């Protein structure tokens, strides 16, 4: 029974990880930028939602809109104010990585100063676990989260396969050079990637806030998962990233069956190390070799 509960928790966690990882995979795949700040945007979105919904007691729809707009705005700002200037003159992947890391540190500490370092949660009766079947607890929010995730994933799939922008973004992930040759503006496509990718963190951020609580460092862990998932899933494969992120979420919880919680954080990294060392091309490699 414990195992089944852990599995359910795992699916819940895995779904949140998958959504966030997809956002990162989209951005990294299209722009090849190590957008570490993705985790920072996750945290910002979560706290914005908590502030508008919890502190200001506004309707959850308004709070969601606030969170999405903030996330997209920050994502675009980071790209235009930081990444683009760097790419214009020096542009090594490390320079951008360091700057992105800098953003994470700034955001983490700014939020700690404004909201404090302790755990805060988004209060809602929906997050109270309900005994579904004897011994199995599930919060109604989990059901909502699952349904939302499926809707978002389907919409994303349609966007990426049916719309011009979506197809262009996928092409960009697989072969940046070719896209430039065909005259598409990589700069405009990058903007779409950042906007879409940043918006995708919001559902995960909201659910994490409601289910497990928030603190300023929560972005780092989820960022690491997204990173691992994108790389292990294979660059250029957004679904690969989603699957791996989901698997990590499930594994993190199943691990608790036998080992104590310190080890569950290490799970993602054990995953990553194994993949990078034994299959550096990733599981679902689609992108062209460089």
């Amino acid at each position, binding site marked *: 029974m414990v195992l089944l509960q852990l599995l359910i928790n795992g699916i819940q966690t895995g779904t949140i990880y998958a959504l966030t990882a997809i956002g990162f995979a989209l951005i990294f795949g299209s722009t090849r930028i190590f957008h570490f700040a993705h985790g920072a945007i996750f945290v910002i979105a979560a706290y914005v939602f908590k502030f508008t919904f919890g502190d200001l007691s506004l309707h959850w729809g308004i709070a969601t809109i606030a969170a999405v707009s903030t996330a997209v705005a920050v994502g675009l700002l980071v790209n235009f104010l930081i990444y683009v200037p760097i790419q214009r003159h*020096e542009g090594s992947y490390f320079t951008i990585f360091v700057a992105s890391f800098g953003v994470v540190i700034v955001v983490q500490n700014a939020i700690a100063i404004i909201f404090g370092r302790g755990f805060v949660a988004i209060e809602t009766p929906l997050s109270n676990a309900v005994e579904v079947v004897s011994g199995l607890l599930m919060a109604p929010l989990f059901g909502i989260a699952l349904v939302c995730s499926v809707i978002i994933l389907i919409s994303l799939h349609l966007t990426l396969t049916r719309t011009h922008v979506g197809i262009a973004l996928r092409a960009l992930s697989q072969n940046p050079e070719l896209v430039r040759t065909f005259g598409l503006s990589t700069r405009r496509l990058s903007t779409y990637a950042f906007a879409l990718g940043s918006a995708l963190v919001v559902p995960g951020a909201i659910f994490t806030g409601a289910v497990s609580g928030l603190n300023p460092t929560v972005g780092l862990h989820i960022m690491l998962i997204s990173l691992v998932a994108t790389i292990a899933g294979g660059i250029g494969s957004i679904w690969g990233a989603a699957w791996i992120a989901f698997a990590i979420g499930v594994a993190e919880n199943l691990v608790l069956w036998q080992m104590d919680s310190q080890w569950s954080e290490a799970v993602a990294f054990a995953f990553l*190390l194994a993949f990078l060392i034994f299959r550096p091309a990733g599981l679902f490699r689609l992108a062209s070799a460089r």
Partner: protein
Amino acid sequence: MSVYLLNVGVFICIYAILALTLNVLIGYAGVFTLAHAAFFGIGAYVAAFVAMNLSSSLVVVLVASVLTAGILSVIIALPALRVRDEYFVVVSLAIQILCVTVFSEWKGFTGGLGGIVNIPLPEIFGGTIATPMQFFLLALGCLAVITLIIGLMVRGSFGRSLMAVRDNESAALALGKNVALIKTLAAALSSGLAAVAGVVYAYYLSFINVQTFTLDTSVLVMAMVIIGGTGTMCGPILGAALLTMLPNALSYVSFLPQTEIGSIQQLLYGLAMILMMIFRPGGIVGAGRSKRNRN
């Protein structure tokens, strides 16, 4: 001399050693790693173990720590360096986090989350190092020796091998450089000498625990190297001095709430990292924006 200043001095030396050794990898070899704090920790834990169980001689402890850290880094580097450049950062992140988990869980060796207390004082040439001044001289001495070693290495042919690998790996291969060996040697040198910082730290405080050796510390040392200037010898030392003194300096700024000094410090160096990368990627010591050359 005031104990307070000597204390700051010891910490500057410790972080300068960490920054200098990290620079061998980041600045000279172009290998970007976030696992440096892990080797700082390995040095400290081995030092504590040897000092408390085997020998109180400083020399023995130093040798043991350096060798352990060096050998472990080679074992880890050999498979890890096969990974493509950009992804190595993530691998190093994984290594750092796994090491922290080991530090927290291996209670027999590391004391778990509680850490190790009552580390005895080091003995050398028959005497003990006990006063703040003596510790400062020890730290300074270690820094001087390490600066000398690294300086010699990077000015000579090894330095050129490192930089060749950094600037263009495929060309280096085509000219006969065994890139994997060069990177592994750089990792051994960097991590082995970083352990010296761990030794000094463990002895000075007589107490170590895992909190000092986390990702935060790796990032702090990286910030020191970047802000001070990569690819030079004095850059990392300058960066270490600046960032070590920053919290002290901030405490004098009266309108800042004391409880938030830690966060403010981090926020400031995060900001510095961003601005540096945009305007002056070479760091304070570096040459400003280099001419962009597509070659």
